[in-house]
């Protein structure tokens, strides 16, 4: 007697044959994004690195992009998935504009849309391998939120992805306050990015800082941070280390 073997439907993403069609691991990745709310809006920073495993392969990757009139999206993780997300959002904004009425999608709406997309992909075991930061200003209201590849989302006064959570957020918790000026905000972000540059192996020394206010989005030209490597401990790092080999 033959019992019916349970068969997957044709379009299922589970089972060994489907592994070539769904995301199992990331390949070209971006590292931390750090963002904070300041007096006039949101400031966001990300370096321009696209790593291929442990190789720092691409050094001019723009990981922050404006979305519509009111939002700014920064992404870490798989770069090709970020590009896919940009295509989704492009279509979303296009249809929003096609209504041609006085309404437009603000940062809150875009953030929630992204949450739905990320969570639904995760449930199908085919995630978009990104951690996203979405910031913006609409009608004087500042908004800053984040979504992870498994759909975890929340808003805060300052957010970060990846290593930024461990290295940048403690600095921000200590030094962030309401109504930061633009200069203070940039200084704070640069402090965070410098720590990440020293300590995150996937960081590259070429970054951009983006600002979004009621007026619109500005993304700076790429630039580098000054670093100091002449600490005596760096000169002979193995000195005093005990080892058997």
């Amino acid at each position, binding site marked *: 007697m033959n019992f019916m073997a349970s068969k997957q439907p044709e379009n299922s993403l589970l089972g060994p044959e489907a592994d070539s069609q769904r995301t199992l691991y990331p390949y070209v990745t971006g590292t931390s994004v750090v963002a904070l709310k300041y007096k006039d809006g949101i400031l966001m920073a990300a370096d321009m690195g696209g790593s291929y495993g442990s190789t720092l392969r691409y050094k001019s990757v723009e990981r922050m992009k404006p979305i519509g009139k009111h939002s700014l999206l920064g992404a870490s993780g798989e770069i090709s998935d970020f590009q896919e997300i940009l295509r989704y959002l492009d279509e979303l904004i296009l249809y929003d504009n096609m209504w041609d*009425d006085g309404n437009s999608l603000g940062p809150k709406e875009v953030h929630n*849309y992204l949450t739905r997309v990320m969570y639904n992909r995760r449930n199908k075991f085919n995630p978009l391998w990104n951690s996203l930061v979405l910031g913006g200003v609409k009608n004087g209201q500042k908004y800053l939120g984040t979504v992870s590849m498994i759909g975890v989302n929340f808003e805060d006064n300052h957010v970060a992805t990846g290593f930024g959570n461990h290295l940048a957020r403690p600095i921000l918790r200590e030094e962030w306050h309401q109504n930061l000026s633009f200069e203070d905000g940039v200084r704070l972000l640069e402090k965070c990015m410098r720590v990440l540059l020293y300590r995150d192996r996937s960081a590259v020394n070429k970054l951009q800082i983006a600002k979004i206010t009621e007026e619109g989005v500005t993304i700076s030209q790429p630039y580098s941070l000054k670093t100091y490597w002449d600490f005596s401990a760096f000169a002979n790092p193995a000195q005093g280390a005990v080892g058997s080999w």
Partner: protein
Amino acid sequence: MFRNQYDTDVTTWSPAGRLFQVEYAMEAVKQGSAAIGLRSKTHVVLGCVNKANSELSSHQKKIFKVDDHIGVAIAGLTADGRVLSRYMRNECINYSFTYESPLPVGRLVVQLADKAQVCTQRSWKRPYGVGLLVAGLDESGAHLYYNCPSGNYFEYQAFAIGSRSQAAKTYLERRFENFMDSTRDDLVKDALMAIRETLQGETLKSSICTVAVIGVGEPFHILDHGTVQQMIDAFEIAGEQEGPAAEPDAAARQEAAAEQGGSTDEGVAPMDI
């Protein structure tokens, strides 16, 4: 309106360029019991006449909450109205779920109009026989729209649909210029006055009408009968003392209505829905 050889289905044009089935659908709206709507900068009020078929039965529901920020009053085939309300509620809740934000009224109204238009261009469908007064609040302020079976929609300061709505429209036309700056309570009073106009002399009581309000800081809700009766009492007494808007005929009509009040209270009401 008389029968002719071009009115059998909605996909047949008449030589004069008319779609009779669509026009007949709009007739159904005109035969339904009255619904009125008016708005200010911050509030929208909907009102309708609710006549029960007999003392034994309950009256038909003609005002529906679609979302916290949108409500609708219908006139015509109330069954069609119920179905469209369900569609509107679905659209609102889906949008809220995806964007965590209320659906802008203007967009809902366009979706509704497009849905109605489809029924005017398919041979196996018929137009919806219901007119909808959509009241809503969004970023750009308070709005009142009218959606008709033809698939057209218009924005209004104030409007009335259904049977004897012309009387209400006349009343509203006289007063509408003040509505933008009206307070919420004045707007409700104007709505009750407009409803009274459609009753043609019959006493206005909270048992035969329904009023709903939506405004800034006030989600869409239907006023309970106690509150409505209070407001009716408040302005009917003050009716004669009212300012320039109250004409001497209004006062005379009120006295006449008070006398007739006893006889029109009993017995069966005419079935006009």
